């Protein structure tokens, strides 16, 4: 698994584990989790994958990434 594939896999895995709490709650929880635990380079790389349109992110993970990209950088 390449690093990009691994990051996408991780994001989807996080989203799947929050999915049972409902879509909106899962999007928020996924975004919060990535914010709390991912190194900035990992986040930037995931965003880049998303921007290229080849991310393969599920709906919840993709929405979480969009939400994160809309946030101001720390």
């Amino acid at each position: 698994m390449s690093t990009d594939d691994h990051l996408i896999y991780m994001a989807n895995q996080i989203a799947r584990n929050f999915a049972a709490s409902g879509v909106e709650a899962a999007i928020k929880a996924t975004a919060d989790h990535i914010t709390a635990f991912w190194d900035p380079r990992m986040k930037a790389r995931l965003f880049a994958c998303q921007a290229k349109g080849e991310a393969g992110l599920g709906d919840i993970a993709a929405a979480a990434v969009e939400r994160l990209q809309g946030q101001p950088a720390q």
Partner: protein
Amino acid sequence: MAWIGEIDLGTRPTPANDKALVSLIIDGQAIEVPEGTSIMRAAALMGTTIPKLCATDSLDAFGSCRLCLVEIEGRNGYPASCTTPVVPGMVVRTQTEKLKTLRRGVMELYISDHPLDCLTCPANGDCELQDQAGAVGLREVRYGYDGRNHLAVEKDESNPYFDFDPTKCIVCSRCVRACDEIQGTLALTIEDRGFASAVSPSQGQDFLSSECVSCGACVQACPTSALMEKKVVEIGTPDRAVVTTCAYCGVGCTFRAEMRGEELVRMVPWKDGKANHGHSCVKGRFAWGYAQHQDRILNPMIRSSVDEPWQEVSWEEAIAYTASEFKRIQAKYGARSIGGITSSRCTNEETFLVQKLVRQGFGNNNVDTCARVCHSPTGYGLKTTFGTSAGTQDFDSVEQADVIMIIGANPTDGHPVFASRMKQRLRQGAHLIVVDPRRIDIVRTPHVEADFHLQLRPGTNVAVLTAMAHVVVTEKLYDEGYVRARCDWDEFQDWAEFVGQAVHSPEATEALTKVPADLVRDAARLYATGGNAAIYYGLGVTEHSQGSSTVMAIANLAMATGNVGREGVGVNPLRGQNNVQGACDMGSFPHEFSGYRHVSDEATRKMFEQAWGVPLSAEPGLRIPNMLDAATDGEFKGIFIQGEDILQSDPNTTHVAAGLAAMECVVVQDLFLNETANYAHVFLPGSTFLEKDGTFTNAERRIQRVRKVMEPKNGYADWEIVQLVANAMGLGWTYGHPSEIMNEIAALTPTFKRVNYKALDEHGSLQWPVTDAAPAGTPTMHIDAFVRGRGHFVVTDYVPTDEKTGPRFPLLLTTGRILSQYNVGAQTRRTDNVLWHEEDRLEIHPVDAEDRGIRDGDWISLRSRAGETTLRALITSRVAPGVVYTTFHHPDTQANVITTEYSDWATNCPEYKVTAVQVMPSNGPSEWQQSYREQAAHSRRIAGHVAAAE
């Protein structure tokens, strides 16, 4: 045998809840003792030692030696003081002419069948028989020494650590009783009757081939030199002792390191140790020889390429090279291009310094620890649900448990000293539920049998726990009063609605979990209604794709049934390494400072910035697997690894090797040239736990002192080495002793506020939080309220792993450890413990073996999509059909060549416990094994040395 100066009160104390006091007179002196106390103990408490041989205060009174006789006014005869309890108004005499005559008579009989070789006896005066001969004034033996005796019976020297000399045995049964009452293995018995009575391991076997687990309890209990450590035989008796803490598992046993000069003679479990109460296992008690092993590297070494042999250099040159390389890499690739890994085998102080080096010196948060690969889901799960990343109880709590549920842990192998406590409680009548894919020993062991063994398919923990929760909710077995008072009721209702769905019922999940629904139902009912219910879990919970979910599912179950916040209950992670808890506490994770405070928390960060004088990053750093990914991508170029062998212990070895090989400076600080060092450019020799001061924190949050008993053979304690590196990088640290580091930890970490070495010495140990409100520590957490306020129920959906069996890989591999070996085996493989486990073997069910034409002991190929290795088969029904199991102690096998990159969704803890594999007969090592051996031999060359160090 008790250490000189350590008082043996003869019999055990009465239970703490028995507070009534009894007044009596002993030898004319009035004394008050708790009801139920023996006369022997009462006398000892007032300073009068009644002669004894079969009695010792670690065992139940036995009354066989007839030496401790006393006279009691108004009673006929001469009762044994060890088995006679005090009563109000009793008048006792311990020394009369008649008693003296009787005792001398008893001693004459003992001595008439005992070798008179005291001058050459290994006990060398440290012998209770000799003491008692003196105490009773024995001057002659009227029977002579020529009668029938046992003096020609051969010694049993089969055990590598102790001898059994039957000629010295007085058949007092202390060894037999220790094996029963302390260890709980019942490997020893007294065979035959009368004159022929003899101590016998198992069915007349020698010690090594018997069921004996070499815990040493029998050796410690023996009043003569019948059972004696080989090291005492070889070296002689010790003349000083230092109390310190074991560096093996997370139980954290305290020991007396008994010394003669600078030489360690033996490690004897300390009676006052609050984690172990005087018990030990084969590792802590005996397997410390690695500290003096010839493989230890004592000189620093550097090289510019792993293809070159190591060059031994001075400490100054090695440290300067390390600092210059890290600075060069950061100048070229950026501040975030390097990081560090702290060790759960090192002290709190050392761990704190490594993460400080990374945050303050490297200027980033790229620090992680080996807890990443074991209990990181515990940190996440328990912090989310309860508010703190730690177990809820002390070990003593198990004595109040009515139901013990063990999930994904194998305590008799992994945490043997605590397992003995657990077994004693089970023998008293507590119930046992085991959730494990293997039939681990505690499922059925002498006098212990699990009420329920839920032998689930690996990877289905969440499904089983949710099914149990389904039963609790749908049968209304939850504790509504507790939940309403202590937890968020709305969240509970959401959770209850979720687990109550029919799809989560035991019947619906049976096809998935392979656990019969009625077993799940009965186990859930027992857990919820059986009284105090305590959960103990291990890496079989955490090392899964759903590790964090499983921890939270456990917490949900405990909260729903009101089983958190008092003695006898709780959620208890059994930590693997000695200082996993401490390493996590000390801020070793890339997203948090010490005390589990997130790096983005401004107030906390400012406090550290002020203390350390540098700005600190508010963004999390890289975890170990992310560091390796970044390394293979060319973005991560240097790493400082203290006391951790990621090449052997981390999953998907090929990927780990590729990551390390891609770095420009790998610094390894360790005792030995471990597997990771094959890819290192700097080797900084480490010190053992015997050679330094500090503290470890065990699985019950107990902070205990590690005390230096000898000078570091490598020249420096590990904390000093980190300080040298830090100062070479310009940080200006000035610690003169680890106590100063602890003072800094306490100043910066609220849960450690009142921890300091003086307080630790005064209390013996302290369980955090140690605060102004709880200066003596906190044995039980969440008593009146959860740390986070209200307990947080989390919906834990069962998300199956993506690791699937199929035609190519039809079996599921799960991995674990064994009693005699520890983790990657770097220490235990360098001791005689290899006699019990000289190689990793693959456990396979007879049906699966027969399908493949595999016989017991055959070499087999174990293959997954990640890699292939070769090892020998062990055919056993301990594993279910479709499941295979192996240990990861030997680098020749490298079980982690097989494990994959899948990991826990929340923490990236690797999924060691579920790998789809195929097993086939083999007649040689795998291609990987061959190439690895060649690479390892090549990499371990040391310039000027004839042979490699391993």
